[in-house]
């Protein structure tokens, strides 16, 4: 009993449980869900598909986790994704003969750099001007798609330069899609920083009580600033993957509502939206769970427009289970039951 309680109270229990439930359901409902085929040295299958799509969300949620841990939120990520795609595609150019105006590496770097500037903007508003994070990032959310439109001059740029598509798909000869490597690299970087430095602890301190953190000598402004820049860069990398998947810049639809999914992943992973303790592993599993849910529902024939209903049900259920008050109500009920049993 004690052991069971220890397991269920772990922050990873809920996301892992949800994911396991989904996978078990799929094992029965969708034939061939777990089968993986090898074609030309590449792996194909539903699982790979899920991981491929989830990679974007994982990268996004890494940035979001840190921002939320400082007690903030970044709702401009979706728009920044659009900006990133626009910058990269604009620099590479839409030459139909498949040549690039600029080396791929330079274009990608420029895109991420522009997104870092977006992060600087958000960080400046939040940490220097002390504007509420949601309002501060609302500005870029509103303007971002307009800026992306300005860059592409109001059109979708289709890129015919072949290597560009490798980012969102596979490099010939590699067994797994590139997105998975990128996500793994970002996660590795985050974990390394967290293990080897005390940045994670600083962030947590800021999220729990910024004033107290400041009085113990932490540079709160700088910490918050850096986290928004990191979030912007994550959105930039995610934008590269997203636009590479469709080999085009689509300012209107790229990354639409992605920030909501990222926030969901973080919440699902056990990190409270009020800041403080955060769980990198939880966010990753949260992201995979959301993508699995999406893919499962698609497989069941739910259309993309109807999908949100099910997502909403999942969100409410998870948040209810995390709510302290809900836990108390349940505990009281079970206590009453025990008392009743004793009285009998």
């Amino acid at each position, binding site marked *: 009993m004690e052991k069971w309680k220890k397991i269920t109270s772990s922050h990873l229990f809920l996301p892992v449980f949800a994911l396991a439930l989904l996978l078990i359901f799929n094992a029965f409902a969708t034939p061939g869900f777990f089968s993986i085929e090898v074609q030309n040295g590449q792996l194909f299958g539903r699982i790979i598909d899920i991981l491929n799509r989830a990679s974007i969300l994982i990268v996004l949620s890494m940035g979001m986790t840190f921002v939320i841990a400082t007690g903030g*939120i970044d709702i401009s990520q979706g728009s920044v994704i659009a900006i990133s795609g626009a910058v990269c595609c604009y620099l590479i150019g839409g030459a139909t003969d498949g040549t690039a105006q600029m080396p791929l590496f330079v274009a990608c770097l420029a895109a991420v750099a522009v997104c870092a500037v977006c992060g600087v903007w958000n960080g400046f508003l939040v940490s220097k001007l002390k504007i509420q994070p949601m309002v501060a990032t*609302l500005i870029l959310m509103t*303007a971002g798609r307009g800026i992306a439109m300005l860059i592409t001059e109001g059109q979708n740029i289709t890129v015919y330069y072949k290597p560009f598509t490798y980012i969102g798909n596979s490099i010939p000869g590699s067994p797994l899609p590139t997105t998975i490597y990128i996500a793994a690299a970002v996660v590795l970087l985050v974990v390394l920083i967290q293990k080897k430095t005390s940045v994670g602890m600083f962030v947590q301190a800021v999220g729990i009580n910024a004033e107290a953190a400041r009085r113990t000598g932490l540079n709160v402004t700088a910490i918050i600033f850096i986290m928004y820049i990191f979030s912007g860069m994550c959105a930039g990398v995610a934008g590269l993957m997203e636009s590479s998947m469709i080999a085009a810049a689509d300012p209107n639809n790229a990354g639409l509502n992605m920030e909501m999914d990222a*926030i969901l992943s973080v919440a699902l992973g056990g990190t409270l939206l009020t800041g403080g303790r955060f769980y990198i592993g939880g966010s990753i599993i949260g992201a995979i769970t959301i993508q699995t849910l999406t893919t499962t529902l698609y497989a069941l024939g739910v259309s993309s427009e*109807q999908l949100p209903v099910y*997502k*909403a049900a999942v969100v409410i259920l998870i948040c209810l289970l995390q709510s302290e008050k*809900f836990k108390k109500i349940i505990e009281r009920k079970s206590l009453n039951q025990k008392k009743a049993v004793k009285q009998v």
Partner: protein
Amino acid sequence: MKNVKGLKDRLVASRYFSFGITAFLFIVLYVIGMMNYRGFLKPQVFCNLFIDNAALIIATVGITFVLLIGGIDISIGSVVALTCMTSAQLLANTNLGAGVVTVIVLAIGLLFGLVQGWLITEFDMQPFIVTLAGQFFARGLTAIISRETIDITDPTYTAVASARVYIMPKAFISVGVIIAIVTLVVATLVLKYTRFGRNIYALGGSESSAQLMGLPTKSTKIATYMVCGFCSALAGVVYSLIMLSGYPLHAVGMEMDAIASSVIGGTLMSGGVAFVPGTLLGVLIQGIIQTFITFEGTLSAWWTRIIIALLLCVFIVMQAIIVRNRHRITSSDK
């Protein structure tokens, strides 16, 4: 000299400072418009600002209530879409009258607000997450009712939609505008003169203080979300009068426009401060920018978004400075 500075500080810290700036900006923009384009001289252009934005005005009133208590509701746009779709579906496939259908959808809006408010207060869940789920839910439900456009052809409905109320010989407004203005006036009066309104301000100022004073914080909070749900549904009715159809992608992102309007009109996102007539100006300023861009013709539509964001930015930064100033003034008073 010190006195002058004190006066200036006091002016900046005044509740109506943002409102004043917004009003000034609106008049300046309108005068610039009148000097550059002959069309701006027509009274109808002014009325069109209201006609085009009637739904947004109502939605902004709703979000202002929620922002006042320091909460947020991002389900507005989806509820508007759900309302349009439900109305269209009921009118097309049942023989209920337009009046009954309107009452039903308004009740749905109230119920939506009630559930959201209950979840937020009863389980201490975050307003952002709950209303995000609400947004997903309403949008998805709209698509489940129908993925295609359903046109509204009910004769009463179309008659109300095309009705023109002349306020001047050459200028008319729509029924939607009348509903919007009534909503605005009622909201202003409720906030100013009723117990419920004062409870909302108290709750927004400090929840724990309000609770210690013995105010019914829980029921006030739920009621506030119900007001917002009702306003969203009402905005949906007005929106459907303009669109005369239900479609799953109606009013995407309207909540963000409403929040922006409310903030530009002087609402503080941290709660406790708002002036409802100011939010009207927030909507009208967005409208006037759109009118400018339509009149100019060469500017592309995305400039609207960028300019609105810029305005939003200016106002938010200004608010940040006001709040800091007010803090300084109150502490120096001691």
